[in-house]
């Protein structure tokens, strides 16, 4: 479970990015986080990744209290998260296989486990036949699938996708979203930060709307409501 209790984040220059945010996301939920640029979505993500510390309030993710987590534990906490970025952040000099394998190597998985698990994950995202390709040889949609595969490599409990459909062509957007829904159906919590009204409206999942650092709307089966 992810729990924000009166979370406020104020940056050193005085900018109040989030103020008294209260949120609960249960295990296995699928959540869209929407809002305009500068609303506070990115700050919320950075807090979840523990790139930033909350200024006040309490933020808990599973067994980890991110308010007081010691630095040495942060990498271990992040292994519970699978991150997907709009710019993919793949390793260009590594093949599709190596990109996924690398995520496992980082946490010290033995080669035998890596060899067994990578093809399985690539089959989930439909890229088994492209395992030798380099990211630059793939389309945007395919690159995002690799990023998803990498995010899944260490069997995380939570997938956080930051504008996962922003840099891919319209045909592939639905593929990526369907993959995320499929991953969610396997019991993983999925948080998608997006601007895309069509996608939010199509899937009818829980939608949390942030504006000026406040949660202004939170409803299950919600729509992208620009009037909120």
């Amino acid at each position, binding site marked *: 479970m992810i729990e924000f209790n009166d979370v406020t984040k104020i940056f050193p220059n005085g900018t109040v990015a989030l103020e008294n945010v209260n949120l609960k996301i249960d295990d296995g939920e699928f959540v869209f986080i929407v809002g305009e640029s500068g609303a506070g979505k990115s700050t919320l993500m950075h807090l979840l990744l523990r790139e930033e510390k909350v200024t006040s309030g309490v933020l808990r993710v599973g067994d980890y209290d991110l308010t007081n987590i010691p*630095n*040495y534990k*942060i*990498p271990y906490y*992040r*292994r519970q998260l699978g*991150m997907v970025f709009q710019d993919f952040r793949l390793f260009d000099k590594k093949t599709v296989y190596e990109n996924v394998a*690398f995520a496992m190597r*980082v946490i010290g998985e033995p080669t035998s486990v890596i060899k067994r698990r990578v093809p399985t994950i690539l089959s989930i995202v439909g890229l088994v036949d492209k395992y030798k390709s380099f990211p630059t040889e793939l389309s945007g949609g395919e690159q995002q699938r690799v990023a998803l595969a990498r995010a899944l490599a*260490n069997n995380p409990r939570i997938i956080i996708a930051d504008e996962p459909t922003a840099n891919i062509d319209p045909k592939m957007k639905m593929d990526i979203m369907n993959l995320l829904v499929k991953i969610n159906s396997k019991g993983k919590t999925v948080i998608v930060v997006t601007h895309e009204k069509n996608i939010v409206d199509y899937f009818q999942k829980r939608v949390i709307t942030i504006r000026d650092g406040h949660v202004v709307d939170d409803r299950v089966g919600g729509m992208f409501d620009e009037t909120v």
Partner: protein
Amino acid sequence: MRRYNVMYFISQSLKGLWRNGLMSLAAVTVLLSCLVLMGSFALLVYNVNENIETVAMLNEIVVIVDYEATDEQVQELSSQINRLDNIREVKYVSKEEGLESERSRYEEYSYLFEEIAEENPLPDVFKITYEDNSRVSNLVYQLGQLDHVNKVNNRTDIANDIENIKSGVSFIFIWFLAILFVISIFIIINTIKLGVEARSREISAMRYIGATNFFMMTPFVIEGIIIGLLAAGFGYLLQVFLYNTIYNAASNDYPMIHIAPISDVQMYVWLGFIVVGVVAGVVGSIISLRRYMKV
């Protein structure tokens, strides 16, 4: 606890060195030059100190025995002197030997010595050489306290001058080494930094995946160590070659200068190069990575 594959770290380091080939080569070359400069200076100081010590050994203390002292008393004094600390060699010169020595020194005036032979005015003396130039004042004092010692002659000014030269040389040596060491570290920092900058996106992605600082830093630290070891290895060969060339030339042309053969010092040169090279590699890479290792 999962264990990381050491071969993986080494292969990543070698890839990093290869990717920044030119910069790696420059780093090895400049670090090698620094090591050879350090080594040459250290060897120069070593040999200068050795030669200064030789000069210092020429400076002997002369203990003049009371003229009336009996043979037994002189013998007792001799054994007392030999028991003192910091003594290298004690040479007894009797009045007769002294007179003979002076006679052969001033041969053209030998007739004068004939006249004084009956009543030899020279005293018995002990000529003493010592181990440690820096403790000579203490030795002179102790000799002066012994019975039947009339006078102790010593050029303490020379001893002090030698000590001053030695400490001056050591002072310059230490500063010179420190400066060269800092330069070496800067070179490593710049090389590793280039590698880190080129891979900053990769490093940031590694952080999100859950890589520990250890995992991210190790390949770069190994890169630094490899640069240090390569510089130490090639630097050692160059140093030995240069030293032998100078040794052969100087031994033929300036036989009065004592130069230690390379076999006396090569182990220290090798160890020194390895230690300085590796420490510069490790420290340099850690400093250049600090900024990237925030959580």
